[in-house]
């Protein structure tokens, strides 16, 4: 089976220059891979570096050393060393990310927020908005909200917009940072079904799920992040 995401020997630390330059190691020697059609869940207590790993994979955090290989248009790109332009191209076509919080843009309607990833890949705006509407409907977001900017939405409503935006494309690799954190039981089920559909379509998923029920439902494998924790290695 194809393996579109391979992480090897990744180290990450933060240097806090405003606090006398103390060095804070967060991830040490992380190596793992995710196969197509597989959902791997990052496990371990809060603060162990799960979100940091997702952010490194998406290029939001730089890494100190190591490789993050993503299969992009038939070849592997190393996110850890790629230039910004390449990272943006990988994000547009291959690597999706559903964050915990939506970064809202003033005045842009929820429907357009969701449709944007498709439009930026050259899809016709009308059909992109139609697909966005279908997803929002599936996620039970009231139609009255579709034309409003999500800045004033509740946490759960924003999160559903965020999920729709992340799931609308056919990205081959999806990173999920607690996509169900502020959802009710009904919508959690919808998201679980959407993850199942992605798996069937051969998407490689890597996620953080604190909700046990969701984790049980979607995880093929749980990766214990405390193995990559510098504290543990020091002990």
């Amino acid at each position: 089976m194809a393996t579109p995401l391979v992480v090897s020997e990744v180290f990450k630390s933060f240097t806090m220059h405003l606090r006398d330059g103390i060095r804070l190691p967060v991830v040490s020697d992380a190596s793992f891979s995710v196969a197509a059609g597989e959902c791997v869940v990052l496990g371990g207590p809060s603060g162990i570096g799960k979100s940091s790993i997702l952010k490194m994979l998406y290029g939001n955090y730089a890494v100190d050393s190591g490789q993050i290989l993503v299969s992009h248009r038939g070849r592997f790109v190393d996110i850890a060393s790629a230039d910004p332009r390449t990272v943006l191209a990988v994000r547009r076509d291959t690597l999706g990310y559903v964050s915990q919080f939506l970064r809202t843009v003033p005045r842009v309607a929820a429907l357009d927020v969701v449709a944007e990833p498709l439009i930026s890949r050259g899809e016709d705006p009308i059909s992109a908005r139609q697909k966005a509407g279908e997803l929002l409907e599936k996620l039970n977001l009231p139609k009255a909200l579709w034309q409003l900017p999500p800045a004033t939405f509740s946490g759960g409503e924003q999160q559903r917009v965020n999920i729709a935006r992340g799931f609308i494309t056919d990205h081959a690799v999806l990173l999920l940072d607690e996509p169900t954190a502020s959802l009710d039981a009904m919508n959690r089920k919808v998201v679980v079904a959407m993850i199942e559909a992605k798996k069937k379509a051969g998407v490689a998923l890597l996620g953080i799920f604190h909700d046990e029920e969701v984790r049980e439902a979607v995880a093929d494998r749980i990766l214990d992040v405390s193995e990559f924790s510098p504290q543990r290695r020091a002990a």
Partner: protein
Amino acid sequence: MTDSPLLKVNDLSKFYGTRHGCRNVAFELWPGEVLAIVGESGSGKTTLLNCLSTRLTPTTGSVEYQMRDGSFRDLYHMSEAERRFLMRTDWGFVHQNPADGLRMTVSAGANVGERLMAVGNRHYGNIRATATDWLTRVEIGVDRIDDQPRAFSGGMRQRLQIARNLVTGPRLVFMDEPTGGLDVSVQARLLDLVRGLVSDLGLSAIIVTHDLAVARLLSHRMLVMKDGHVIEQGLTDRVLDDPHEPYTQLLVSSILQV
């Protein structure tokens, strides 16, 4: 995506006497890319922008621009006439103070139409139709087309300046603090407008700002300047989420949360 940059900047420095405005700056700008230059007042942002846009002659270094025929030309080896033609057609420059980029005593329509005439348009009806279209795109009421920008609010003036710059279909737009001096609701409207236009038209842009939220919203990539040097650069969200240099960490940690 094309595989050659639009602008290549090599080893650019500008000295004012013995002091430097910017020092050894090098980067490439790609088509469709929005680059933010951030840093505090006096860090050399505006000097750099002016050196890139031929408003100020650099002391050393080169700025090469890909012409529409695909060839690269060094801006400072062009004739003055060629540079001016480039400024009028292929480039736009949005000033922080709209009064610097507009003619305050001619009508809004004429402000937009002037750039069109500069590239050879002569038919009054067509020019007026295009001007009307652009005023609508920047959300200025068509009934204001014959008013002078003197009678406009700050936000309207700034939108008019943007229309004037974009009407000739430039490939590269320079912006110096485009939202400086506007109140926040007007700022949000302008940012949304600029964001939409840049992505619809596939423009490249270089935006100087001290506002990191503006940079986050508009730019793909970021240069952080301090004392004339580029001290950190990279993908915008990488620089803001994981700043490495002490000064960048200070900047990011100084943002007020609402």
